[in-house]
């Protein structure tokens, strides 16, 4: 029910992007636009706060992979994933993609790792 909400906070060494609600395949484009904005500002060190994400589909994973590849190019950054709810983690696991992500239990740990 909860629609997608996004907030961006610029921290000293990285950008914290908090996603909340449902990211179905029709909403993955909205997340993509946030990544594109950050890229155009030259910001590639990103922490995704997933704690309030209720739903994702493969379209979100596709966006994530695409922009993680861009972020890591020239060693300039990465997208860290923090505080994934169990059901969201299940989807990552099902995708087989978990090994390629840096995953943190808490936002503090992820931000602290930059």
């Amino acid at each position: 029910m909860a629609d997608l909400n996004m907030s961006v906070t610029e921290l000293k060494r990285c950008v914290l992007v908090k996603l909340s609600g449902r990211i179905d395949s029709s909403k993955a484009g909205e997340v993509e636009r946030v990544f594109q904005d950050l890229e155009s500002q030259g910001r590639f060190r990103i922490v995704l706060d997933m704690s309030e994400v209720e739903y994702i589909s493969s379209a979100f994973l596709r966006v994530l992979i695409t922009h993680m590849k861009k972020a890591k190019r020239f060693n300039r950054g990465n997208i860290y994933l923090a505080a994934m709810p169990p059901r969201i983690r299940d989807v990552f696991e099902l995708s087989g993609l978990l090994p390629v992500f840096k995953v943190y239990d808490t936002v503090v740990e992820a931000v602290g790792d930059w």
Partner: protein
Amino acid sequence: MNTAEIVFASDLANLSAALDFVRAQCRFAGASDDETFACELATDEACTNIIEHAYQGRKDGEIRLTCLWADEVFIIRLHDRGQPFDPTAVAVPPRAARLEDVEIGGLGLHFMRSLMDEIRFEFDPAGGNTLTMVKRLSHGAAAPREPR
């Protein structure tokens, strides 16, 4: 067997409402939260494929979404009149250990197959394409709210 059906245009803008619809019927059928999530995600992937591949981005194709359920089973049926395809030719995407090796895409069908207990495609040149996905219901956690 109880049924619920909506018809909508092949526009991604209709997807969220279609998922709301599936969720409402799952709740009513007494599906658990996990079973509901699985049904939603399989419907999402199936609808997205119909919009992107079967109708190739056309927004005026017709999609018919039917939920059917009884005590122990929840069935989602999707009907379209777009391009058929060969699902047996779609393999499970290879597992990649390094980001560089990850191929973009190919997860949708894998999700549908993994999350549902049974999926079946039928392609009828005259009648169109029908996808049937079956989820067995445990009625473990919550009491079934199905009238009986």
